[in-house]
């Protein structure tokens, strides 16, 4: 399969401090790739580096375009939607306004209207609460809103930073089920960062294991799951 996103020797810095030390990564078109690793391994930083939210070096290509020198807005406009950690919803704006902002860069009104229906279809709760301020939603609803806002961009690639963070297990199960449906039905590729390695490996086709800013292992989700070391360190059995 062709790689939609391809990084070679990707380094990223917070100020002078290097956090990624040259990561090679590929995300297949149409697939779901999981990024596993302990706290501080650089998973979130890797997502931020893709979106040019941190200073980065190394080669990085998206849909056969080099991303070097592009700002966050330009990467987003190429079709990369990022659901950041902490969800990043606009708390004082309504649910509907949040979604409208998600489609900010798109001109085609009929398509945008269809996508409103589509995300309300995936997350009916958001339709019920569309006039409500985003800050008044529950944690699970805010995560749904963050994912929906990203979908409103009609992205080719969805970057998800810990979508399960701080949510009840049932809600997490629901959200992962919908993510899989979105991947199948909308052909949106995903790169997902998760602490919850079991759910992430269930969802993903491929996975990378990050340790202190390096990719130490990669392969199909099934192979990674069977690996002795991964099982003991990250799956806990």
């Amino acid at each position, binding site marked *: 399969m062709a790689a939609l996103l391809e990084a070679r020797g990707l380094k990223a810095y917070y100020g002078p401090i290097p956090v990624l030390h040259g990561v090679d990564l590929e995300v297949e078109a149409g697939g779901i790739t999981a990024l596993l690793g302990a706290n501080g391994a650089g998973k979130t930083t890797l997502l931020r580096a893709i*979106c040019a*939210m941190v200073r980065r070096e190394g080669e990085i290509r998206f849909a056969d375009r080099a991303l070097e020198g592009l*700002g*966050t*807005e330009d990467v*987003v*406009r190429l079709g990369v*939607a*990022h659901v*950041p950690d902490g969800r*990043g*919803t*606009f*708390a*004082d*704006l309504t649910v509907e*306004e949040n979604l*409208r*902002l*998600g489609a*900010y*860069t798109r001109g085609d009104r009929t398509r945008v209207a269809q996508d409103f229906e589509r995300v309300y279809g995936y997350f009916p709760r958001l339709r019920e609460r569309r006039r409500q301020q985003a800050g008044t939603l529950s944690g699970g609803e805010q995560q749904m809103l963050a994912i929906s*806002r990203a979908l409103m*961009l009609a992205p080719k690639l969805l970057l998800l930073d810990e979508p399960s963070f701080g949510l009840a297990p049932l809600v997490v199960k629901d959200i992962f089920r919908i993510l899989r449906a979105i991947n199948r039905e909308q052909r949106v590729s995903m790169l997902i960062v998760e602490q919850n390695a079991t759910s992430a490996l269930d969802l993903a086709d491929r996975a990378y294991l990050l340790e202190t800013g390096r990719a130490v292992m990669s392969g199909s989700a099934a192979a990674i799951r069977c690996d002795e070391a991964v099982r003991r360190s990250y799956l806990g059995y």
Partner: protein
Amino acid sequence: MTALLHQIFSGLAIGGIYASVALALVMIYQATHLVNFAQGEMAMFSTYIASSLIGWGLPYWVAFGLTLAISFAGGLAIQRIVVRPVQDAPVLSVVIVFIGLLVIINSMAGAIYSYTITPFPSPFPSNAWYGNSFISPHEAGSIMVTMGVLALVYVFFRFTPLGLAMRAVAQNPVSSRLVGIRVGWMLALGWGLAAAIGAAAGMMAAPIFYLDPNMMGSILLYSFAGALLGGIDNPWGAVIGGFTVGVLENIAGAYLVGTEIKLSVALVIIVGVLVAKPSGLFGRRLVSRV
């Protein structure tokens, strides 16, 4: 009673000017978390531009519209050229830049137009039907113009995609980038809008205060008091605060402290708000967990 009503109405007229400048201050504050000390001088310079345009024989309202457009472009340019390079600098550096802008614009106005006080025309004829014993035609007209400007700004922010994007940027610049909004340009646009709003206020103020390079000094102080009173992070609170300060100032000037030390009313309000309720009437209380 008539005298009191008269004071209230002319307070509302001046309050509209304060409200506009307060709104401009809040717009910049939301983006930069700093008060633009040069806001008043920008408005003053815009008013001089209007004065020149009228002097060249343009009809008043053409000059008015043209001045708004020029001020918008000027505010945009100031943000791109002067403010943007220091946007990540420490707070004090930015404050110094704002004060520098204040001094530069003030001196430029002095050098170009001289420091002599000049009259500025009112577009509202002195025998207009909307003038009566409570309110002069210019005061009534000024209220209409400032209300019109405020209504336009409201419609822009509430109902247009661009306005929504600007609100998003004020709230969460990081997420705004992630939906593809060009945050840098939105900030510049905010400066342009603030400059245009200030220009409208300046043109309404000049017939009352006369035009000179220091015209906006006390107006800025009252507007700041209004913005603080309403809540420096709440645009519509700032508007209400501006009107309130205008009325309070006028009544205090007429009945309590006299016109000579009227300006101290602004300072009393500023100190009072900061001591009693720093978030203002409609502002959001910032709570940080430690």
